[in-house]
């Protein structure tokens, strides 16, 4: 699995300050993750001197997309980037496979169980595999609600998608 799904163009190098600025953009719902950790940031390239940022929505109705666009604009403007555009790409459809290893670790430390291919959901508090599903949906579309049978803590699980 690729640990970073973001394609950064090398043919026409992207300035370091642009990359650093984008690296600072976090998801509004899960502020410990950057949009790059989440695989929402799909690419950065230069086109005739302009920075072109490509992002993809997690879920079709994800309300965070508007915030994410705004945050990218602010981050680039703060970094002194004047010419840029933000494109949204739908295909290929976003998948949790694009979440970086680093992102998975941070998610777990934050108290949200990271997506698991075999659907073995481990409790982010005590690490036990003995957990149960409470609801298919939780506070956002990308999560479901679980409870640990060992330490009894309820917790969110970032669904495999």
């Amino acid at each position, binding site marked *: 699995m690729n640990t970073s799904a973001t394609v950064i163009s090398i043919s026409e190098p992207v300035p370091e300050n642009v990359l650093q600025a984008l690296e600072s953009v976090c998801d509004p719902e899960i502020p410990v993750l950057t949009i790059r950790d989440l695989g929402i940031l799909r690419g950065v390239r230069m086109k005739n001197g302009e920075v072109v940022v490509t992002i993809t929505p997690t879920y*079709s*109705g994800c309300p965070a997309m508007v915030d994410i666009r705004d945050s990218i604009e602010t981050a680039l403007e703060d970094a002194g980037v004047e010419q840029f555009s933000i494109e949204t790409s739908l295909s290929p459809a976003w998948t949790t496979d694009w979440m970086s290893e680093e992102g998975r670790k941070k998610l777990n430390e934050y108290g949200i169980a990271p997506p698991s291919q075999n659907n073995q959901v481990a409790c982010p508090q005590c690490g036990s595999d003995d957990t149960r599903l409470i609801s298919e949906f939780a506070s956002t579309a990308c999560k479901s609600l679980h409870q640990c049978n060992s330490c009894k803590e309820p917790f969110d699980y970032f669904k495999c998608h």
Partner: protein
Amino acid sequence: MKTVKNTDKTRFALALGDDALVMGQRLSEWVSNGPFLEEDLALTNVALDYIGRSRMFLTYAGELEGEGRGEDDLAFYRDCREFTNLLIFELPIGDFGNTMARQYLIDEFEVAYFEALCKSSDETIAAIAAKTLKECRYHLRRSREWILRLGDGTEESHQRIQAAFDEIWPYVQELFEMPEYETGLLEDGVAVDRASLKPDWDAEVGNTLREATLNVPETTHVIRGGRDGVHTEHMGFLLADMQFMQRAYPGLEW
């Protein structure tokens, strides 16, 4: 191969957008009214998926039309007869059983439909379908569980979910019918042959209903008209609710 008429493709994208918009609006009526908190969140999240889908289809329909209409213009400034959603999507939410019976029947249909539409020769439609499909699969997981639980639950839940299926059945057939423009798009590989999905749908739904100790309704009565803009009496009320703010304060933004 004949060339695809742009207007046909516009109508096609618009109809798929209307289906999703109206369903999202209906489901959002459950916000803060769900039977319990977790289910309230689930209904709302599913509503959000539909609204997201409608935004993608309506935006694309607006681009194809090329008259400068965006998703909001299409959602808020068209009248009843201009909406071409299928009738099943506009039916009132009823009780939780009515809502879940509709959801389940639609989920079974949509998983198969969007699976096929992923192969559309139109790249944008195929991309929206691929995004939608992942969400529909998840919706089906939940709605199917509810049908089993309600059907094979108490006497009360069994009787009410059976009544819900009986009531909705005349509206099901329309999912498998195509207007002329859609048949035209079929030849170009843009659309999907809806009728061809019926045998598998019948089998899947039959299995679930049997497992839930429910009967597959036997009525042959069909109510149709959505794609022609001929709606049930419920549609005007839905639009009044959905469009009021934009009609009263045109261009209003959050």
